[in-house]
């Protein structure tokens, strides 16, 4: 991936500006910025466990981000990754429960396929409406998030709730369907590897295949692409299928990788954060990989900050994450406009 010097500058400037603002806010609210920042930045590296948690958090975030990114490349705004992730998680839960008697080597791949299909099915209606009837997908995908979440709310408090738990969640899925732990003693599991592999696969598909070329062409200028022989509907169908599958997989790596059960509101908004991560990674799969590591490292550091004696609520870290993305975007656009003049 070619990183222009101006881009590198925009990242440095964006992060610097955001951290300065963050320290300023800390001062206003009466926190000591230096130890807080130290905890924020060193938190993710403080222990093997914390470092592994960064990657556990990264897996669904990166997959969500790729789901948005690939659709974005084809100019299809899938803002419904959050809902597709929930339905993917539900599919993974159902498949896991059914496949309990099978060995892992058979069960896990089938669960992954089920999650992908679940995620894709939740995108099918907006995708169909877009391709066949030219209905804009932004609001349909967005609104379907709320419906998906209410379905999960209903199931986890009612029909599939674990009756022995006070929390709105299901029982554990059979351990044969769990994604294998890669680093013993932590939650670092196969899901992390799957997510990183997915980033490279998406890089190859988007940047190194004819299909990817057509997708990018139709995303940049649908009309020109069509005159050049690209079937725009086919491109949108392709990105839609990939996007829904990736979103479903994001749900699966949480259920079968990190949590081993389906809980109400288990996603802290991976679907929406994925959009910010994609933007921070300059809409490049490898960029998204680095951006998702930064994002989850900040989240883990933020949790360490929250545990400090004078705990800083984690919400402020979420604000910092978005501020970084906004600042980088603004500086980047500003610099590129200046250069053009």
């Amino acid at each position: 991936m070619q990183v222009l010097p101006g881009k590198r500058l925009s990242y440095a400037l964006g992060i610097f500006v955001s951290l300065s603002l963050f320290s300023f806010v800390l001062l206003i609210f009466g926190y000591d910025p230096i130890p807080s920042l130290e905890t924020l930045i060193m938190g993710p590296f403080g222990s093997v466990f914390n470092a592994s948690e960064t990657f556990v958090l990264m897996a669904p975030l990166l997959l969500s981000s790729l789901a948005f990114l690939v659709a974005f490349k084809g100019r299809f705004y899938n803002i419904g990754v959050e809902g597709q992730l929930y339905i993917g998680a539900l599919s993974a839960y159902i498949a896991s429960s059914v496949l309990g008697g099978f060995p892992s080597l058979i069960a896990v791949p089938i669960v992954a396929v089920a999650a992908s299909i679940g995620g894709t099915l939740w995108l099918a209606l907006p995708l169909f409406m877009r391709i066949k009837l030219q209905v804009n997908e932004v609001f349909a995908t967005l609104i379907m998030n709320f419906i998906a979440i209410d379905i999960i709310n209903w199931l986890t408090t009612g029909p599939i709730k674990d009756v022995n738990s006070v929390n709105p969640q299901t029982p554990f899925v059979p351990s044969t369907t769990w994604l294998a732990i890669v680093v013993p003693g932590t939650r670092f599991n196969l899901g992390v590897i799957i997510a990183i592999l997915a980033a490279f696969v998406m890089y190859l598909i988007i940047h190194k295949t004819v299909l990817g070329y057509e997708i990018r062409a139709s995303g940049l200028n649908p009309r020109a692409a069509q005159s050049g022989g690209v079937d725009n509907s086919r491109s949108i169908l392709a990105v839609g299928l990939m996007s829904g599958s990736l979103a479903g997989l994001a749900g699966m790596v949480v259920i079968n990788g990190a949590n081993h059960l389906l809980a109400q509101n288990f996603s802290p908004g991976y679907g929406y954060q994925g959009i910010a991560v994609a933007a921070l990674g300059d809409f490049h799969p490898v960029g998204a990989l680095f951006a998702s590591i930064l994002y989850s490292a900040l989240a883990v550091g933020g949790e360490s900050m929250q545990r400090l004696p004078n705990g800083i609520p984690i919400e402020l870290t979420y604000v910092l994450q978005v501020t970084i993305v906004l600042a980088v975007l603004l500086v980047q656009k500003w610099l590129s406009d200046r250069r053009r003049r």
Partner: protein
Amino acid sequence: MTDLITPILAASLPLSMPILFASVGEVYAERAGILNLGIEGIMGLSAFVSLWVTYSTGSYLYGLLAAIVAAGLMGLLYSYASVRIGTNQLITGLLIYTLSLGIADFSYRRLTSVSFPLIQPLPPISIPGLSDLPVVGPVLFHQNVMVYASLAVAIVMGAVLYRTTWGLKIRAVGENPEASDAAGINVNMVRQLCVLFGAMMAGVGGASLTLGYLGLYNSGGLLVAGRGWIALVVVIFSRWSPYRAVAGSWVFGLGYSIAATSIGSGLVAGAAQGTEYFLLMIPYVFALAFVFVFHRGTKPPSSLTVPYKRK
């Protein structure tokens, strides 16, 4: 069930009010060519700010004004990014959404460590004579001042958009920025003002949710519960007209009211665990149906989401 009809209708107006305020504002932003996906978050932020200020000063007016200022600041940030710098409007709007909710929830967490803000929602005003009518009385003439104001604002802003030079300029900027520029209109200034106005109206919407209906805050996401997104759907459904936004918002207010009123009345208390979530789904199912049924044939302002740069 039948004895619920009057309460459902009566609550439908206050529940449509936040959507109406926000969608009237968004009509202006979109008419000028800028889509603001951040209004869901801006509503959450202003809902919190209005509650906090009203709780600490005891004045609803101060609460409302503070909410407008907070929303306006987010609007300034968004208009600077989307109009001046010309960033991708969908991406930036979503970032504004996350940013606003983050700020609101952080501030709420800080505040609730010392106190739990709770206010009495604005009392309803009965219109003498009319409020005693059966059904129509409690539904239309026994509401709080912000409900009446939301309807008035929609009508006034409709008139401004269609009957004044200002409105004409705004519509021209959204339809054809090049020609408007050639005619001497400062395209990006009009856009910035419209985005600012849209954000401020989302702020009034958010404030109306806490001051005029709920009187509390828990988290921005749970509180606003999609009303901002739905306001954006209402804008499409109403074909970018403040007048039609009244009807559009009311349909969704009805959806929220059916859910809230039947849950509040204990209608589902005996039903299986989790049944209430089906009721809570109603407004979203409405919205989805709206998008699919009414989106076809609607034509957004030509330059919507396209930044304008002078050649």
